[in-house]
């Protein structure tokens, strides 16, 4: 099968790769580019563990083809911190222990970042519905919601 040549931007860096026409963006990120922060929890868009942002839109990278990234800007968990300066959401997830096993955490952080960029002052209900596409089996979501609330306050003050 002939590969598709793709030129895209990932976390601000120009990236080129060849992928198969039926290969998902998640497979490209993980298997071709070594960006394993996005996880495959289901492969059917139900769990959100593979969440990334493509041109400002939150997507499940398991439901996007690698070829579709052509000419777009992709943001993954690997680009969320600036050097050793964690994003306020990352810092608040740590402080609130908003993770136990941590496998859903990259997806939650990306989804929460997208949420706060669109709604800097969400209510608890808006956070809960904003993150309803991401499954967590460990925490019961309580500490995740609190971490997002706290991060929103910090980011507003910044």
């Amino acid at each position, binding site marked *: 099968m002939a590969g598709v040549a793709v030129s895209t931007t990932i976390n601000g860096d120009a990236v080129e790769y060849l992928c*198969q026409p*039926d290969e998902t963006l998640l497979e490209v990120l*993980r298997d071709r580019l070594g*960006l*394993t*922060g*996005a*996880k*495959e*929890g*289901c*492969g*059917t868009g*139900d*769990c959100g*563990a593979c969440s990334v942002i493509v041109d400002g839109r939150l997507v499940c990278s398991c439901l996007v083809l690698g070829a579709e990234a052509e000419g777009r800007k992709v943001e*993954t*968990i*690997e680009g*969320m*911190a600036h050097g050793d300066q*964690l994003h306020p959401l*990352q810092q608040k*997830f*740590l*402080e*609130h*222990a908003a*993770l*136990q*096993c*941590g*496998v*859903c*955490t*990259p997806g939650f*952080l990306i989804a929460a970042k997208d949420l706060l960029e669109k709604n800097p002052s969400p209510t*608890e*209900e808006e*956070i*809960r*519905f904003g*993150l*309803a*596409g*991401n*499954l*967590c*089996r*460990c*925490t*019961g*979501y*309580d*500490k*995740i*919601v609190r971490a997002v609330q706290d991060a929103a306050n910090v980011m507003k003050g910044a």
Partner: protein
Amino acid sequence: MNFDPRFSGRKFASVGTRPIRPDGVDKVTGRARYGADFNMAGQLVGRILRSPHAHAVIKSIDTSKAEKLAGVKAVITAKDLPDLTDGDAAMHDILDNCMARKKALYDGHAVAAVAAIDARIARQALKLIEVEYEVLPHVTDVDEAAHHHAPLINDQVFTEGLEEKPAKPSNITKRTQFGHGDVHKGFAEADFVVERSFKTEQTHQGYIEPHACVASVNADGTADLWVCTQGHFVYRQHCAQLLGLEASKLRVTSSEIGGGFGGKTHVWAEPVALALSRKAGRPVKLVMTRDEVFRASGPTSATSIDVRIGARKDGTITAAEATLRYSCGPYAGSWAEIGAMTAFACYKLENVKTVGYEVLVNRPKTAAYRAPSAPMAAFAVESAVDELAKELGMDAVDFRIKNAAQEGTRASYGPVYGPIGIGPTLEAVKHHPHMKAPLKENQGRGMACGFWFNFGGQTCTDLNIGMDGSVSLAVGTVDVGGSRASLSLVAAEELGIDYSHVKAIVADTSSLGYNDMTDGSRGTFSSSMATISAARNAIKILRERAAQTWDIPVEDVHWEKGHAIAKGEKYGNLSPLSLKEIAAASGKTGGPIAGHSELVADGAGVSFATHICDVEVDPETGSTRVIRYTVVQDAGKAVHPTYVEGQYQGGAAQGIGWALNEEYIYGKDGRLQNAGFLDYRIPVCSDLPMIDTQILEIPNPNHPYGVRGVGETSIVPPLAAIANAVSNAVGVRMTHIPMSPPRILAALDAEREG
């Protein structure tokens, strides 16, 4: 080793604080490596072919076409995993479950596997494998399977535990019984008796990370396995035995684990990946799809439980009895036995009897799920307890307080309790503000209690002190939710240094002695005990080095707040030596300083919780929403309280999903119909309220700091607490979990029709 594990009241400097976990930054930046995040040079992709039938004889398997496909490097069947189990029936079941030998016993049972250069070729190869099946009658329901005319899953099974060996084989593998006193006499003394039957459906642990491993078998008989597991030492033993390897030549590294909850305590794909690698001569990565996780890993039992409880007018329970039938999948288990042990463990009973029946069904092999078997038994018992309180006209909490087990009570499953937390959790609930929160129309409040044994077991740790005075702690219990933070706190506490100077890791099987797996809420309990022991061994050496430096007897050197101190007026001119100073000189005073510990952590303190739940039920749709939830649980001593709260909240959330929505749905063809997160819906963020927690600390006398396991008990009360809340909201006793909208509507309709 003269390690004294007994509790000693002490003031803590580190334990009980809430620092950031040592593995935290890796986990928020995407750097932490889970099962599927590891790769090896030349690695192949493994895939497994699974039976589409619930019960079928495998007449033949033709792999020749798959083997000829370009890019396929190995195809295996059961023939490539010869039986080396040497009469060990439990291991033979594991082997047969990894790869069906004569019969496929459930929809999803592995029958063959391939390794190919990429996933596409591997998938194509699976389609080229030709399996000829003779389909047999199947049974998936626990009550139907227990019936004498049900299709037999294994004709070599004759029920154990009966007075006489039965003449005919059966799907009931074992009967067990627990209790004391005389229940006939007890029921005769009762003024009120409640008798009810309950059912619960099969659920899955629902960890977000599918099973994943990379296996590499070398030509010289050595092998490596990278895998997400709750117990890499146990995986090594099982895989080595099934593959005919020496355990020491198989090095197993536990990856970060993306949830387990008991579901990653058993090997499924790992022996297959090793067999593929052995045949292909290359590393093989094998990752289950979500569909495979549901169909072919280990969900919990479906159950059917009858409960009968009698009490006098004054509220004293005179007798309690339960019969519990638990599905095991197609292989023998002890799930009903555990249910029968836990059922009445919260209460002080003169006359109690529980009987468990293990039932084979054509479903995946049952695995542990967080306090395995206890939530279903608690659902049945705590529902009946609520009904009895109503008949007596007593408050549900007061009735439980009157009958709660205490220190000195003989437990329904045998032992006599030490200091326990059931009474204190009930008293805390009685006075909790949640009990006074106003309820509106269609809302109801319920509460329930839960018990779990907690495990201890074999445990090793190594504590190495670097020349700069920092401490490396290597533990062998997999960290499923923050235990590296807790164990670092314990090492810091014992050594008298700051938490920031301790770094804990989970060591691989070649770097540390054997450890039992992280199950039974034992991770922090057992490894903290071993860490304390290792630290005390290191302190002994630190004192010796200081004594040597000062040229005084070691008996005169004490260890306080991270320093060696010479005790006695004659040493007034000796200033204390810090751990850092002693470590810096270690090269000249006798070499590296370390403390090791190998022990069996006995005396895991039993754990109790009481939960309160408010729900709102929509009478039009039968949909239920949890609007308020409170967990009160005894932790013994909360080492890292934030992670203790996390365990309480997580267990409650899983229980809420189990109570209201989650279930395996099988078609008449015996195939699983909802093998995905869309149709097997676990709670999402918008389904739940905040989950309030209250940590009680009734010290475990068998742990130096009083620690008890905390991970599992939190899933025991929710099924019952929510069932009681729903029943109070709608005025109908709910007896079938999950209380999905159709079941609630059916119960309401039945009530209206009388």
